[in-house]
């Protein structure tokens, strides 16, 4: 929690909470922010903080894997001085999916995310909820929040949509932000100048979203045919005839075989991380991320996976989800967090299980194309 939040915005009139303290804090905060951003930089392609000193938190026009940043909320009945009109001229009551980019101690320095154009969309995630919001405002910076650079202010209704408790406009905490992918036919078909393929080969991570995934295919055992095989060491051998995505899922599973089961384990972390423990949904999501089937920030309970992908069993991959549990089959081998099929089902921990279990009470889903 940060006290004395700087709350001056353009467009909506000048609004200051604790003006003198705020201005002083802003100056101090700008220095701290510059220091922090020089340490955190953009993070690498896979979302983990890196040491690159870009001076801004989120740069570039394209989608990114996202990162944790400090955020505050503003507006609402407890914060009437913020007004309701953003510096873009938008009425924020009519456009509640709004955020303000912060930074520095003047409006010209409100560029903590690189000076995003108005209406730039960001996916903002708090806990297990996420929402798209658009930049319609700017504001002054402030000190770090939980050690993270403070870069954006969430309009209070947006914060409420994310489940953030309303604290009269004074809430502060970490959120995860990422740029959503470009939309529109010209961008999807890579025919705009911004999306046209580069003449110089891009990095591997740019070429293949799954390249960011933790699962390296090198070293993954391969079995002939089209079914995965359980090996003596508990790992799975990927079928040689399977699509690349299936082999990537198996590679990701092999990374966390034998991890302890902890309810809630693995949640709240980027899927690119290897967590010390997993539960059913976080482990399944780790495997899906291995093939680039969910974004790095994806974090959902098992019930949410009841609507994943397409209905019914898949050719290679089938998830069985309910509000209480989720498990999956990958090329005929079951990925589960406990021994559910009786003796001979394998270990009681997280991993590959050779026996089929009952799917009563579960919804079958599969990734498109798999």
């Amino acid at each position, binding site marked *: 929690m940060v006290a004395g939040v700087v709350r001056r915005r353009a467009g909506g009139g000048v609004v200051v909470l604790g003006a003198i303290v705020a201005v002083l804090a802003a100056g101090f905060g700008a220095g701290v922010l510059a220091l922090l951003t020089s340490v955190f930089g953009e993070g690498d392609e896979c979302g983990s903080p890196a040491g690159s000193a870009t001076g801004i938190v989120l740069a570039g026009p394209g*989608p990114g894997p996202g990162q944790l940043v400090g955020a505050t909320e503003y507006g609402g009945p407890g914060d009437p001085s913020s007004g309701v009109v953003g510096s873009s001229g938008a009425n924020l009551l009519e456009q509640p999916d709004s955020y303000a980019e912060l930074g520095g101690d003047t409006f010209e320095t409100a560029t903590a995310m690189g000076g995003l154009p108005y209406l730039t*969309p960001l*996916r903002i995630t708090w806990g297990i909820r*996420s*929402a*798209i919001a*658009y930049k319609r405002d700017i504001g002054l910076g402030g000190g770090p929040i939980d050690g993270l650079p403070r870069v954006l202010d969430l309009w209070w209704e947006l914060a409420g949509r994310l489940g953030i408790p309303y604290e009269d406009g004074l809430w502060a905490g970490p959120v995860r932000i990422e740029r*959503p*992918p470009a*939309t*529109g*036919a*010209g*961008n*999807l*078909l*890579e*025919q*705009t*100048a*911004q999306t046209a393929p580069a003449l110089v080969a891009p990095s591997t991570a740019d070429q293949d*979203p799954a390249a960011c995934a933790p699962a390296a295919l090198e070293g993954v055992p391969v079995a002939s045919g089209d079914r995965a095989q359980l090996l003596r060491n508990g790992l799975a051998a990927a079928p040689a005839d399977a699509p690349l*995505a299936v082999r990537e899922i198996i590679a990701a599973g092999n990374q966390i075989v034998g991890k302890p089961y902890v309810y809630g384990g693995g949640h709240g972390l980027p899927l690119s991380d290897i967590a010390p423990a997993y539960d059913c949904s976080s482990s399944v999501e780790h495997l899906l991320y291995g093939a680039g*089937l*969910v*974004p790095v920030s*994806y974090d959902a309970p098992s019930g949410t996976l009841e609507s*994943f*992908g*397409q209905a019914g069993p898949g050719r290679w991959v089938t998830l069985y989800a309910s509000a209480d549990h989720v498990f999956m089959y990958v090329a005929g081998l079951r990925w589960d967090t406990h021994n559910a099929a009786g003796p001979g089902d394998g270990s009681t921990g997280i991993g590959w299980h050779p026996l089929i279990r009952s799917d009563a009470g579960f919804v079958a889903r599969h*990734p*498109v*194309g*798999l």
Partner: protein
Amino acid sequence: MRSRRAAATLLCALACVGCGHSARGPASAVAQADATHEYPSAPPPPQTAAHAAPTATQAIRSFVTAYINWDAQTVSDDMLALAARSIGQARAAMTLAAAETAGDYELRRGGIANSGAVEAVAPLSGSDDRYVVVTRESTSASNTTAYQGLRPAWHVALATVHQLPGGRWALSGWQPES
């Protein structure tokens, strides 16, 4: 002997004239290619377009509506159809898009679809054949959350039109700008 020598001289002179005439006359195709780096050939036949429209704006609206409304299963065929109804650079761009989307695993795996409407078509100032096109489009996906929650967005493109023999119109250039 003198007459033989005279004949030889005459032949030599004729041969030299022949050589000289050959060097100064129309160049061979190879010689022209050597000089200009272009091998001469007959001009290509004029391109034809299927479903050409009676007016330039109708051609643009029809083309763009098809360009922005597709899903992962249809996009390749849709782009091929657009290639057939356009000429020049636009045809090349659509042919390329058709080829690339036919093998685009990510599009199909994500279940990505695009939809939208043409909001405005206006002639570009100072140009007889170029138009600014404004669309409003939504992108969705059935198997990824990446596009979830995104509002429809405005996009701008430049279209170039060409009047075909017979008076009907087709797109000859297409450049999305955003």
